[in-house]
């Protein structure tokens, strides 16, 4: 392992352990959350039932099955929607 990749791995591990705050745009508003994290983790942190919502990640609508392996990184744009009354 070269010094550079060692440094990168160290940085990654430190970030994972220290839970860095990542800044994202969540439903159009600035939002800070400990991460990086998956969509499933974000929903759990927000106490949102994943069965009743839909998520758009950087303008791509996610299949529900992808929530667990889609990682949200700093600068990402996330939209979480649900159904409300309408005509």
């Amino acid at each position, binding site marked *: 392992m070269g010094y550079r990749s060692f440094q990168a791995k160290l940085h990654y591990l430190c970030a994972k352990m220290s839970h860095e705050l990542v800044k994202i745009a969540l*439903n159009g508003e600035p939002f800070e959350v400990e991460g990086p994290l998956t969509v499933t983790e974000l929903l759990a942190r927000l106490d949102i039932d994943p069965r*009743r919502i*839909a998520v*758009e990640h950087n303008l791509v609508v996610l299949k529900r099955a992808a929530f667990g392996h889609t990682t949200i990184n700093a600068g990402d744009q996330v939209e*979480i929607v649900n*159904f*409300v009354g309408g*005509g």
Partner: protein
Amino acid sequence: MQPDIFVIADRTFSSRLIVGTGKYSSPAVMVRAHDASGADMITVAVRRVNISDRSSARGPREHSEPSSGAESLLDYIDTAKYFLLPNTAGCYTADEAVRTARLGREAGLSHWVKLEVIGDEKTLFPDNEALLDATRILVREGFVVLPYTTDDPVVCRKLQDAGAAAIMPLGAPIGSGLGIQNVNNLRIIRELARIPLIVDAGVGTASDAALAMELGADGVLMNTAIAGAQDPVAMAESMKLAVRAGRLAYLAGRIPRKLYASASSPIEGLVGR
């Protein structure tokens, strides 16, 4: 009489009345109104989850009162009984409407969408150019597209040609309760429509819904006329009956209009002549 079934795309509906879920005074009233309406398809809107309500959810859980955002519309809709039709209400561009339709598909259980692309805030009239663009995109993506449009026969024909599953011209502006404003346009649209024709918006009271059906509409979609009535449950039932009555009158074939009288009783055998 032949069985009168209502089919859109590959789905059969028992009711020709489609109702909304907006503007109700309470979820309980909505549930009872839906039941009274006899409808089996109901519209819902797709909106951002309120995140600020949920920020507290990151702290220790409070058990006293749920945050307002924790309550879901779907808690009040039996999805085994009602087919959900997500709308793109409030979208002003084809892009917004397409994104919203895709989100609605993932949040729900179907690939159906009531497509709205609004062009003007005050009238909520659709932007038909953007509506056509969005219809073409969503049809290509496999959606069953039900576009809300003006009562313009040319636009309706273009939407039909673009692959819409139904055409849904307005009777009058959304929520206006003015009733059917252009009877003759609806007649023309009836003649050209090879797909279901659903009058969407503008109904104020039962006779408006009956008139739409008498003109040959295959269905009527409404929200405010029921939700905004003083007694929404009673109005829902009246709309159920009106849609049914109008449909039967259309199938029965009305008499032609004449300027002068035509006696109903025999003119022979009158006493004293």
